[in-house]
């Protein structure tokens, strides 16, 4: 173990909550800072902001073809429609007609001569009302010359294999040799569907023009700095002329990391060209068509293993549908490879990505960012081994976990130094009663004519840090006012995950004042610049540390002032529950602040943080891309109707590692919500394109996310106790945004287990995702046929 990986034990861990503690200290199950506003309708989202006088409403004209040359565009009917003020096309873009996040110039704001997916924007129309703009947008007369369209992974992979960005390969050991020498080999293909984010608040932006070409943009985005850059790029402005502000989002999940660029750029363009404020909010159906989704994958796998189920070599090819442009497909498919091991040690592995170009919307970030697809592949491989050897999959999982002292090198040559999966899974195995229930289910299935039960326990190991190392930085700004109240600002976005609450807890802790003293303010590129996307589960790790640094700077100034002013040693200045003890003097925090102000002490500070220890060499496929790993496991039990393929989730037990949780209530919310979202991805959520490349599941009427009654009927969720992060993260907590999403895999595997029972668990069902009732029933039929064709001897 290299020295740099040694746990840093110098940071003290805060004491547990006591009656003497402030309200809203770190580790308290504090409610969301906006909860009272959420429940009363007073929380302001972009569409709720009072509109500036003269605001124009913008709507987009979209391609109806998957791949075509635009022969002609007649926009005069649009211009003549009631209420229309202006129409803009690529020719009207003052800067560069490009909104791509990777600098590849492959994603135009408006298509001009070529359309590459159904729903691609071609023009924008601005009108006095949204209804008028929407009606007018439908009136354009477009003539297309259709070109051959590549719509599926199969067509792209088996055809020309055009890639949107450079693929990656991870290699450890000699996979071919290991496979050749293994006593057993299995190979197969796994298909995993994509996923629509279905943030409840659809995409939206409102731009307000200012002086000297300046523009202020209110936008629902996870990445205000990127919006700022893109708008500057499109409008040919310096970044300093563009300000982006976000108070909160009605959900993001990765869908507003880059996808908000389009809407912001469009409104900014209209604002610049008309001098009037402009707002764009697509209808839900259009949002589905225009914006990217989670990548669907087809994964070809080969695994070699010994008689005990120990993996010897793995070879996987990850073919992903990237859509028409790169967007984040490179890092997403990279992360799939980074997680193709899940929690398992591969002595030899070759993992390759294929980010395939297709004539569909450009797929993008979504909670887990490719990691989930990699992990589903790992779990499929485990199931294959279990069925091949006739063993319980849990046994094979445990046999292949990373070791602590050895067997701990990942396919990207990072050593796993914080592995707690064996203990965590053992604890869940016990608390969920896995083996007893395994027996009970066997008995139930033996006596049940139509309904079948299934059980599965699957682990999660998720790497924390942006793999683009430069993103692992954050800034914060803290102001203390002379009445003792505090404003807090940082680069992270509040999208429901409770980031503002957690960071406020950190600042409250540092000043030892009640959290009500802290007022989080809207994220604004004018306050904290050069922010990273709130993504990769990094929000509280990065911004919490940055805010802590800012608060400590001010606290240190206050200590120095108090020590000097009242003639005590600095360590005689103590902050305690809204008061400050200076030697034997006891004063309120506000009194100290006022005194400091009178003495001309600066009461505002910035803070900055960058994650230590990480580095990544993509070309070599080697490095330490992750600061640490977050772990968890889930045990799911389902019942399947073998006549219809329908199913219910009877019970789920989760044990999840949040380190020393900053806020157990919020973290529990992330775990429960992430699990249900992950379960939805693998079960009922189905993106269905027709032969013309049109998405036909484009609204909640056709695209089904889990509803209330789909949650597990028994849902036992626990946070792993006594497990502080071994790294020096903010108060030893762990990131929790994405990791619980993958707990949903347990449901897919429980379904697979139930399906397998129809053929006596003789064959691996190879149940693909999403496991809709139709796919489950198809799998049951296939297994029954197979069993009939090869009767048990």
């Amino acid at each position, binding site marked *: 173990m290299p020295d740099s990986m040694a746990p840093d034990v110098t940071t003290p861990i805060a004491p547990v909550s006591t009656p003497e503690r402030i309200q809203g200290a770190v580790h308290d199950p504090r409610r*969301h800072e906006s*909860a*009272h*506003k*959420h*429940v*009363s309708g007073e*929380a*302001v989202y972009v*569409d709720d902001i*009072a509109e500036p006088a003269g605001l124009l409403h913008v709507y987009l004209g979209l391609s109806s073809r998957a791949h075509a040359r635009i022969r002609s565009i007649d926009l005069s009917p649009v211009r003549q429609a009631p209420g229309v003020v202006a129409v803009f096309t690529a020719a009207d873009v003052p800067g560069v007609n490009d909104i791509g996040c990777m600098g590849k110039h492959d994603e135009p704001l408006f298509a001009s001569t070529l359309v590459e997916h159904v729903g691609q924007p071609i023009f924008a129309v601005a009108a006095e009302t949204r*209804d008028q703009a929407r*009606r007018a947008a439908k009136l354009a007369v477009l003539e297309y010359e259709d070109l051959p369209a590549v719509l599926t992974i199969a067509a792209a992979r088996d055809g020309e294999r055009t890639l949107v960005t450079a693929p990656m390969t991870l290699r450890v050991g000699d996979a071919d040799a290991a496979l050749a020498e293994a006593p057993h080999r299995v190979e197969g293909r796994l298909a995993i569907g994509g996923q629509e984010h*279905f*943030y*409840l*608040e659809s995409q939206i932006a409102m731009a307000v023009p200012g002086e000297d070409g300046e523009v202020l943009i209110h936008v629902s985005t996870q990445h205000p700095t990127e919006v700022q850059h893109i708008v500057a790029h499109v409008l040919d402005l310096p970044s300093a002329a563009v300000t982006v502000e976000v108070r*909160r989002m009605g*959900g993001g*999940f990765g869908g507003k990391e880059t996808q908000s660029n389009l809407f912001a750029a469009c409104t900014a363009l209209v604002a610049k060209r008309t001098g009037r404020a402009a707002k764009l909010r697509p*209808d839900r*159906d259009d949002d589905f068509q225009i914006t990217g989704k989670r990548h669907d994958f087809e994964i070809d796998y080969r695994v070699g293993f010994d008689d005990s189920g120990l993996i010897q070599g793995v070879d996987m090819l990850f073919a992903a549908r990237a859509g028409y442009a790169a967007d984040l497909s490179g890092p997403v498919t990279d992360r799939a490879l980074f997680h193709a091991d899940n929690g398992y040690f591969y002595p030899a592995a070759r993992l390759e990505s294929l980010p395939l170009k297709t004539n569909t919307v450009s797929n993008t970030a979504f909670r887990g960012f490719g990691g989930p697809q990699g992990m589903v592949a790992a779990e499929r491989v485990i199931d294959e081994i279990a069925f091949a050897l006739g063993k319980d999959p849990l046994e094979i999982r445990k046999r292949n976990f990373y070791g602590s002292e050895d067997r701990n090198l990942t396919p990207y040559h990072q050593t796993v130094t914080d592995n707690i999966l064996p203990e965590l899974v053992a604890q869940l195995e016990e608390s969920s009663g896995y083996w007893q229930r395994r027996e009970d289910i066997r008995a139930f299935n033996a006596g*049940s*004519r*139509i*309904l079948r039960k299934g059980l599965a326990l699957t682990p999660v190991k998720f790497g924390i840090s942006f793999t683009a190392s430069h993103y692992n930085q954050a800034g914060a700004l803290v102001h203390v006012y002379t009445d003792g109240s505090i404003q807090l600002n940082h680069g992270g976005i509040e999208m*429901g995950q*409770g980031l503002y609450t957690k960071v406020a807890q950190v600042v409250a802790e540092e000043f030892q004042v009640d959290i009500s003293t802290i007022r989080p303010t809207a994220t604004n590129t004018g306050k904290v610049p050069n922010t990273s996307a709130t993504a990769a589960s990094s929000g509280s790790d990065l911004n919490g540390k940055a805010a802590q640094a800012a608060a400590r700077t001010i606290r240190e100034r206050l200590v120095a002032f108090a020590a000097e002013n009242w003639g005590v040693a600095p360590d005689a200045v103590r902050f305690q529950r809204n008061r400050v003890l200076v030697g034997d003097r006891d004063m309120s925090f506000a009194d100290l602040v006022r005194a400091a102000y009178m003495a001309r002490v600066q009461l505002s500070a910035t803070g900055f943080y960058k994650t230590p220890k990480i580095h990544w060499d993509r070309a070599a496929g080697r490095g330490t891309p992750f600061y640490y790993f977050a772990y968890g496991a889930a045990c799911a039990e389902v019942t399947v109707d073998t*006549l*219809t*393929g*329908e*199913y219910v989730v009877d019970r789920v037990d989760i044990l999840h590692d949040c380190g020393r949780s900053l806020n157990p*209530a919020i973290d529990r*919310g992330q775990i*429960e*919500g992430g699990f*249900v*979202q992950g379960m939805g991805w693998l079960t*009922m959520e*189905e993106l*269905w394109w027709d032969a013309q490349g049109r998405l036909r*599941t484009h*609204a*909640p*009427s*056709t695209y*089904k*996310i889990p*509803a*209330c*009654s*789909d*949650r597990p009927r028994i849902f036992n*969720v626990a946070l792993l106790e006594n497990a502080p992060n071994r790294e020096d993260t903010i108060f030893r907590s762990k990131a929790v945004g994405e990791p619980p999403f993958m707990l949903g895999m347990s449901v897919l595997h429980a379904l697979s287990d139930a399906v397998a029972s129809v053929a006596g668990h003789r064959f691996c069902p190879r149940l693909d995702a999403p496991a*809709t*009732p*139709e796919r489950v*029933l198809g799998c049951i*039929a296939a297994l029954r046929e197979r069993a009939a064709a090869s009767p048990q001897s």
Partner: protein
Amino acid sequence: MRQRLRFYLGDELREIDAVDPTLTVLDWLRLSERRVGTKEGCAEGDCGACTVVVGRLDGDTVRYEAVNACIRFLATLDGCRLLTVEHLKGPDGALHPVQQAMVDCHGSQCGFCTPGFVMSLLALYLNEERPDGQRIDDALAGNLCRCTGYEPIVRAAHAMYEMGDRTTDRFADRAAMAEKLKALRDEEILSVGAGGRRFLAPATVPQLAQLLLDNPGATIVAGATDVGLWVTKFQRVLATVIYTGRVRDLRRIEDRGDALVIGAGVTYSDAAERIAALYPDFGELIRRIGAEQVRNMGTIGGNIANGSPIGDTPPALIACGATLRLRRGAETRELPLEEFFIEYGKQDRREGEFVEAVILPKPAAGERFRAYKIAKRFDQDISAVCGAFRLTLDGEGRVADIRIAFGGMAGTPKRAAGAEVVLLGRHWTEETVRQGMEALADDYAPLSDWRASAAYRSTVAANLLMKLYVETSDPAAETRLVGDRRLAHA
């Protein structure tokens, strides 16, 4: 004729003369009133972010119902009371028990769906004392949340009863509100509009009949759970809307002795209990149509009249042998429901004619009824296949009578004529059923679409016949995943 729309927004009487006939409640709240607490999530009644509570006069009391503001037309609020999330806080700024429970249980994350959940919970709180888990799931089925996984919201649904006293709740004084609403009630035709387009809401059946004769191109609207989407999704401009919701005689269920006569304006919610008392499994089917908000607006008459091949009540009604009563002017006629559906998009309804009632015969002794709804999701989903069966066996265990109807299998809700013939008179055995399953393949040629492939639809339709067989022949077999499991062997 009254040319002024009247309703209460909270405690405030609003009177509006000029109103676009298809202006939605949501757009009115957000755009005209700048009451932006109510959110738009989908504009098609499927996510519940826009949920508001509407109080309507019901005898001497007020009935409070959660509805979707996004697809409900403002003018349909005539004579009602509209409550939005902004009404809940007390005069002193204190949160309502429903709100406090959501805060204390960590029921909000991003908060965008939250006002809708709060309003669904409010309706539940006002109407029901300590509902069980199933009822809470049903009450929340029409509200999607992408953040929480619902668990904390369900906790709040339990906890809200600990937070306040329902009997002294601010909204509990229904008698006083009923008096106010009674004062708004009249027998006039409501006629409001703007820009040459009209919203006409008759109060009586003869008025409705006459309006339809006078306005042959008019669009009839009942719950607007379908027509609402024509407006929000397709931006269709409807010149004349004739709303049936004020016609009290259409909102009645009459017990004729041998049958229930269900007025065309009866909502799913109003009908559920009466139908369930006769056909428990039909009640279970209604529980799974749309969600609470849709069932509070949508009508059985509308479900029939719009002719959709995937409406859920027609297969069940056809299997039960229901007949339809149509009316044109003073003239009425009745026909078996299956004959109403001619082909996709075409029904046996003449110009100026309207569905007045559906007549649901009561079950005969020994008759067994089952309905199965198959979709990707149990709640608030449109069926891929909906099958309904009415079976009577004679004393020898032979099929004395069988009626089978499916939705989602053809261009209309349709009977399985071939399978019925195969089964009739035969001993009710697995072998017979397997022959019936084969015959079903000739009865239907379903389509493939995003809800299901043709192959899945055909397989499942056949398997549902097998399910019927198991449920009627093997009392020990467990066959149900959701709802009241006892219905399987009832």
